[in-house]
């Protein structure tokens, strides 16, 4: 039944379109497309694709924001029913929903960002109509770790995570590896806020870290990270020299007007969404496999705004980047890998 519907609708739309004959959708998690982070980035990629290929917003490309967990499946289904060719699911929280929706709507493609699919026993499963998009957050985090190590004056830096999960651990361990690679004597404090949406907790944690002597904090904590910015800006306004390293997007803006953003680890979800959409348009939808966006694919990296970073640090980043690309350095993702990495230094 689904297939039929899709054909009818797709055909009808196709007649009125001249450029690309494709419909792409995005289901966000509860964050929404202006969360200054992940969802926003995905939406920017989709918009770029849509505009480039002459799709109309709302028809050829559009998004649906999820209000709660139970909305994921119906929202994905909404796009499938609406004849969309590819529907992006923003974030690993949608993993189960994508699996269910993909099994129910075999005629439609889905792209799950940040996660693979797993069965009840935790084994990875592949579905032909699901493309799994992941990023090498650890390598990007390694590079901002290098910048942090070159910039710290107190020889102490901090990391604030949203929730303690394997994904955020990639950020943490990559960052720590980068710092330690430059200077093993630098002390690193880490703390997880337990929540992506508690700015006041971010503020308190940052306050504790700065008071405890850290002068740079790297956050991978979404809205909670905004609290880190708040604290840093307050301190900078009072004359302390402290920095924040942003995450996911170039967070230079968030540091203004006090200008506390040292750099940001950007994760080009927009690029990934754009690329996958294009592949789908060309009939090469990478279903049933994992597509990794790493340093090479410009899926991760440091932010374009570099005004607060010394040239020396930037040069060093370039060095390390090459070493990672060449495979000379293998950046750790998990705690165990980091321990081994640190021991090998």
């Amino acid at each position: 039944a689904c297939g039929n519907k899709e054909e009818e609708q797709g055909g009808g739309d196709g007649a009125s379109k001249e450029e690309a004959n494709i419909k792409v959708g995005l289901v966000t998690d509860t964050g929404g497309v202006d969360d200054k982070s992940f969802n926003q980035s995905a939406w920017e990629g989709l918009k770029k694709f849509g505009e480039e290929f002459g799709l109309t917003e709302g028809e050829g490309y559009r998004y649906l924001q999820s209000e709660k967990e139970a909305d994921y499946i119906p929202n994905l289904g909404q796009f499938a029913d609406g004849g969309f060719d590819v529907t992006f699911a923003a974030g690993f929280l949608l993993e189960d929903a994508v699996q269910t929706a993909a099994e129910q709507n075999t005629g439609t493609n889905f792209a799950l960002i940040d996660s693979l699919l797993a069965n009840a026993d935790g084994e990875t499963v592949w579905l032909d109509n699901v493309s799994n998009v992941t990023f090498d957050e650890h390598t990007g985090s390694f590079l901002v770790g290098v910048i942090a190590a070159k910039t710290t004056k107190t020889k102490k830096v901090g990391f604030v995570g949203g929730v303690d999960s394997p994904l955020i651990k990639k950020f943490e361990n990559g960052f720590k590896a980068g710092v330690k690679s430059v200077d093993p004597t630098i002390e690193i404090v880490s703390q997880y806020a337990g929540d992506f949406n508690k700015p006041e907790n971010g503020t308190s944690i940052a306050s504790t870290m700065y008071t405890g002597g850290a002068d740079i904090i790297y956050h991978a904590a979404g809205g909670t990270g905004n609290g880190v910015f708040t604290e840093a800006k307050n301190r900078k306004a009072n004359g302390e020299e402290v920095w924040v390293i942003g995450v996911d997007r170039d967070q230079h803006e968030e540091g203004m007007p006090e200008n506390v953003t040292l750099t940001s680890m950007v994760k080009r979800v927009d690029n990934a969404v754009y690329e996958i959409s294009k592949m789908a348009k060309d009939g090469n939808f990478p279903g049933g496999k994992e597509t990794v966006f790493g340093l090479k694919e410009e899926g991760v990296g440091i932010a374009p705004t570099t005004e607060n970073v010394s040239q020396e640090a930037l040069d060093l980043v370039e060095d390390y980047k090459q070493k990672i690309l060449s495979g000379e350095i293998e950046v750790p993702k998990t705690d165990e890998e980091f321990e081994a990495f640190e021991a090998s230094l």
Partner: protein
Amino acid sequence: MQKLLKNQRLFNIVVPLFSIILGILVGAIIMLVSGYDPVTGYGALFNGMFGNPKSIGEMIRAASPLILAGLAVGFAFKTGLFNIGVEGQLLVGWLAAVYVGYALDLPAIIHVPVSILAAAIAGGIWGMIPGLLKARFKVHEVIVTIMMNYIALYSTADIIKRYLYAGNEKSFPIKESASLASTFLADMTNGSRLHWGIVVAVIVAVFMWFILEKTTTGYELKAVGYNQHASMYAGMNVQKNIALSMTISGAFAGIAGSMEALGTFQNMTVMSAFTGTGFDGIAVALLGANNPFGIILAALLFGGLTTAAPQMNFNANVPQELVDVIIALIIFFVAASYLIRYILTRFSKEGK
């Protein structure tokens, strides 16, 4: 007097109906003022609720936990207590059902009831604590239940992380044998997630009605709610009844959690914010006038509205928050039923 009694009954039905109409009217005005077309908007909303078997299935699915949350609130209300802790009781019930559904190996005929029972016990204990504190130390149940909500939120998250973690912020899934999901129901509704939970919810509603209206336990619970002194005078154990009321209310809420655990999700996510179902339960109980059958209808309405909200957004571009506004307005009008009474008596007077 007989006529007045009838009138009262009639009023109990007229007031919610009128409130729904008023809520929808004000919603239309809001749409108009903000430049949306109410006809398109409501058309999409209605379509999202009743448009096809799938949306009806989703509506009933969403209603199942809402019914139970509403019953939990309503039960406590009827016995003079305000259980604002349904949210927390639901969370612990959800976790308990997931744990039993995951860890035990039983035939489905036993596994499902045992998992639901586990949820009821967990929720019951979570409700009993504020009940006992109220009975024993006269601590305000509202404040304790609010606190217990947070404790439930953080401790369930921590327990999943520690003992049941399957990665990606979620717990291990429950076993097939504990699942309320049904391919029969799903097929019948064109692939909605409708599950057998609705049957459980209806059974619990009948149970609540029976307890409150037909048993000596209900007689005692309500008496204690109305007048503790007279209950004591009549030889009832006031402390026991307060604790019991909160326990039963909590158990209902726990079962609401099992709807999510065994039905919709089959696992539990590490949550950092409340589901909101518990608070919606207050609204449902009110619209249903704390009557078990009224609660079922109210939950269906709210369940339908919330599942249809994304559809309205998708098809008519009206922000789905409008649905929250409409729900709030409906509750508001029910609460302010004096207004409706006033309008109606005015009308009937002029009619004469």
